């Protein structure tokens, strides 16, 4: 339970961190360390060098842009959970954050760290994929970005390259006024890894019909999946339409099987949680007053 020896460096700039990372394939980034340090302690990871990016000013902070909220990679999960901008503009992220680990791990764990770790059952990647967020990357050749759906490619696997660092996550902000969020997950204990998680966001028009809808499931496949719910746009999100849309979308999910839950269980629970999440999102949106701009 003691990590193998490593060198520790704390670069002063993001560019320096990327250069250090690109120069040494046995180097790893560390920020909050809430997943990496257990891996080191169990010697499942033995990097020769740790590059500490937690205090880099370029990676900190939450800022609003036109149509988006950009969450710096080293934003602590506990901070994001309480942030008024995230609560108002990216309600799905605010809703899932209390389910990420426990209060002490959220005090150290970062939003970008959870993205880079790419656990298939993790809630932050689920919110990013469901909302169609962009993952902003710092590289030795300057900044770049890619859609969350392309970023996650498998369990703990991302398409990030050598010398690249997640710098921020750009969450799109829906322009609609009546937005509701739904989230459910099943795990063995509170805040433990989710066997299945479902997140939904719904926008309703003044007439109560659905204008926009996003639905995603985590823990089922080998990465978070966004399900196509476009058939629900224009409906009142009645039980029959929702069930039909969810059933046809979840039929094709390739579910994982492990000691905790079989593939059949995961697929079945996913369908139920998707329906519940959409229902919760619709109820929340419907409770908001109609009329006017956001």
């Amino acid at each position: 339970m003691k990590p193998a020896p490593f060198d520790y460096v704390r670069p002063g700039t993001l560019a320096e961190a990327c250069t250090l990372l690109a120069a040494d394939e046995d180097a790893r980034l560390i920020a909050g360390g809430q997943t990496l340090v257990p891996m080191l302690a169990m010697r499942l990871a033995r990097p020769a060098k740790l590059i500490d990016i937690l205090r880099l000013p370029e990676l900190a902070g939450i800022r609003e842009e036109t149509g988006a909220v950009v969450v710096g990679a080293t934003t602590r999960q506990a901070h994001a959970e309480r942030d008024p901008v995230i609560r108002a503009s990216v309600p799905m992220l605010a809703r899932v954050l209390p389910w990420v680990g426990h209060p002490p791990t959220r005090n150290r764990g970062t939003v970008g760290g959870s993205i880079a770790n790419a656990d298939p059952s993790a809630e932050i990647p689920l919110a990013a994929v469901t909302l169609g967020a962009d993952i902003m990357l710092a590289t030795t050749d300057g900044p770049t970005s890619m859609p969350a759906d392309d970023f996650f490619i498998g369990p703990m696997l991302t398409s990030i390259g050598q010398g690249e660092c997640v710098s921020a996550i750009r969450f799109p902000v829906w322009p609609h006024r009546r937005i509701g969020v739904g989230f459910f997950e099943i795990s063995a204990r509170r805040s433990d890894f989710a066997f299945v998680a479902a997140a939904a966001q719904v926008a309703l028009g003044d007439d109560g019909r659905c204008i926009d809808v996003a639905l995603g499931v985590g823990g089922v496949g080998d990465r978070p999946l966004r399900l196509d719910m476009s058939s629900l746009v224009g409906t009142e999100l009645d039980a029959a339409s929702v069930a039909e849309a969810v059933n046809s979308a979840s039929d094709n999910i390739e579910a994982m099987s492990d000691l905790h839950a079989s593939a059949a269980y995961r697929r079945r629970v996913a369908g139920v949680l998707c329906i519940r999440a959409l229902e919760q999102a619709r109820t929340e949106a419907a409770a908001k007053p109609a009329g006017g701009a956001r």
Partner: protein
Amino acid sequence: MKVDLRINGVVRSADIEPRKTLLDALRENFLLNGTHAGCEHGVCGACTVLVDGEPVRSCLMFAVQADGYEITTIEGLAPAPGELSVIQDAFCETHGLQCGYCTPGMILAAHALLQHTITPTREDIVEAISGNICRCTGYGQIVEAVQFAADRLRKANTPRPHNGAPHHTQAEHDAPVEGVLAAAADDEPVVEPK
């Protein structure tokens, strides 16, 4: 690597290998053995310390990462040697500890909660200690201890600093603190019979 850490209000220095966790540094370099080593991979919460007032697992942090923060261990809570903090005392009174292994972590988690929540609900308390595993006392008496401590702290009417990030909006902050007047009303003045 030479590291300067501010622990319980005192700056202490040591030459620490990068791979040494804050937990091991606290125990071995600074002889603060109240921080307990449990699972050493971030599951049990026995090693909880406060970093800038917020509970974190000291086994998931390297000592070399901990400079510049205000670190509080269980040794830093008592007002004076031989005395107990209100929360520590509440744990004794309600039998909130048996073997005591999880207790420092529980008390620090409760301390952080009660710094920013004056009237915690049972759910607030359960959430605050959800990352701390107890294998003998049972959570019932631990929750009771935190409730008891919250009640005493309300009645003590001591201002509490808001460490770390604000947990309340300004409106919530300015609102009258719920429970303060009620708590005072509960204390009927004892009238000595003449």
